[in-house]
């Protein structure tokens, strides 16, 4: 019981600290803006630990964070093997293939107005569908190994990237295109020097949406069959064995992989679209 009381106290004091920091004179400074969410996250973790211990919640319902951390540190080789199988082989290869294919098709579609008007509504429609449902079909076609996961990822990332790229390629004003014409620029020159750079913010928007979808696709596809490694496989089998600490460790891996993947694309975006208002300091 004492743990629970302590948890409540911790919550109140953590929250008061955050309120004070957020309304204090230095609230706009970079360190405070990082500190406040960090305090919040840390408080949640501590309260989780205290409540689980205090109320002695069964481990099959919710393991405490310390146990998850222990499991994480204790099974690094397995986690790394699953990470390579699901993320590097499945998600990343599918991501590259899917985004490249969507990009090339977008350039072609943009060239022909008829195609654009026909494909764009279809693409928009497809982007909203539960494409992850194609997983059982693709697993049947490409086998249990990473190829089928990559195929699911390709299908999942394809439409958001396509739609965003096509929208981006349209994002130049008549004035800008007329200027290129007065320079006597050819189609490819206009594309390379004006329209592709102008499309970059849109393209990166699509690429960023696709990072999460890629991981979701690779993990869910493993629920339909996989070799005896991979994050989705480990999650579904560990759940079956009620080894929830392992499940949580895999979720930590998935969260880290997703955040770093997104962060890497965002960093890349900052380098490419440094001129865009949203990136200027």
């Amino acid at each position, binding site marked *: 019981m004492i743990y629970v009381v302590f948890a409540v106290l911790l919550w109140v004091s953590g929250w008061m600290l*955050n*309120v004070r*920091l*957020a*309304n204090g004179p230095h609230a706009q400074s970079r360190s405070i*803006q990082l500190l*406040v*969410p960090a*305090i*919040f*996250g840390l408080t949640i973790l501590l309260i989780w630990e205290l409540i689980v211990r205090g109320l002695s919640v069964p481990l*099959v*319902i*919710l393991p405490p964070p310390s146990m998850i951390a222990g499991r994480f540190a204790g099974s690094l080789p397995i986690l790394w093997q699953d990470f390579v199988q699901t993320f590097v082989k499945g998600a990343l290869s599918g991501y590259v293939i899917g985004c490249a294919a969507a990009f090339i098709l977008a350039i072609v579609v943009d060239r022909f107005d*008829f*195609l*654009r*008007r*026909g*494909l764009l*509504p*279809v693409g928009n429609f497809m982007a*909203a*569908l*539960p494409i*992850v*449902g*194609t*997983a*059982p*079909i693709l*697993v*049947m*076609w490409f086998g249990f190994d990473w190829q089928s996961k990559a195929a699911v990822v390709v299908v999942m990332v394809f439409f958001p990237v396509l739609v965003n790229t096509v929208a981006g390629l349209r994002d130049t004003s008549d004035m800008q295109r007329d200027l290129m014409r007065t320079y006597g620029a050819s189609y490819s020159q206009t594309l390379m020097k004006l329209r592709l750079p102008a499309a970059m913010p849109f393209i990166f928007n699509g690429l960023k949406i696709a*990072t*999460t979808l890629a*991981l*979701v696709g690779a*993990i*869910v596809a493993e*629920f*339909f*069959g996989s070799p005896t490694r991979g*994050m989705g496989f480990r*999650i*579904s089998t560990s*759940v*079956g064995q*009620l080894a*929830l600490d392992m*499940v*949580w460790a895999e*979720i930590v891996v*998935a*969260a880290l992989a*997703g*955040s770093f*993947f*997104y*962060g890497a694309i965002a960093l890349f975006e900052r380098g490419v679209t440094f001129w865009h208002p949203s990136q200027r300091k």
Partner: protein
Amino acid sequence: MFKRSALPVLTVLGVILALWYAACVPMNSAWTAQQLARSGATMTVTETVGAAWSQDRPRLPAPHQVAVELWDTVVMKKITSKRSLVYHGWITLSATLLGFAIGTSLGILLAVGIVHSRAMDMSVMPWAIVSQTIPIIAIAPMIIVVLYSIGVQGMIPKAIISAYLSFFPVVVGMAKGLRSPDAMQLDLLRTYYASDAQGFWKLRLPASMPYLFASLKIAVAASLVGAIVGELPTGAVRGLGARLLAGSYYGQTVQIWSALFAAAILAACLVAIIGLIEKVALRRMGMRQ
């Protein structure tokens, strides 16, 4: 109007359909060839193509096979029958809608809190944004099993996954929307001596509607995915996800494809309904002509 939008779309759909039929032949003829080699008979090209389009368990079912299966299981079966797709669709849809309602209301509440409390904004918002970059769906199997072990099963666990998936897009979109009134509009209200509550009801909330509807469309699609994935790990016997799973266990490709199309139609209808509500609501509010 027809020539501008419908004709190109129909052409593209026609091409997709033609490619599909064409793809059926190489995908399915391996099986036919095997049968032929066994019996020693030969087939003409037209017969091979015909066989590829009418197998029982093809690798890639032809479009008309999927359409026939959809028609059979949606219209011809009684709604209460275990083989009716309407029955399975309803199981999934009810979990989706319940989860969507929970996730959306909680998301709106949190967004209101975020806009009104600086501490909450700075504490929660970074996490809400980070949570969009991680594959939340990975926890779906765990939620199902944990709730099962404490005696909750059926619709609720799936609805919780749906709620969880629809929650974050709504928080982020709604917080953005509630902040969308510019300084000039806020100043105007201040000159009217409007209270915070009045500012909220008369300016912030109406101004957030376009943002809300945009994130609702994402959220409802995510809810459906959540409900379908929520049916996978326990080997559920009811629902569209269960149809997908059963189909993949028993190699019933036509069943997988028809469940997939049913899910797609369901998603399209849900998004379309939200779009329609959006159109009507925004017009009534005078935000769109």
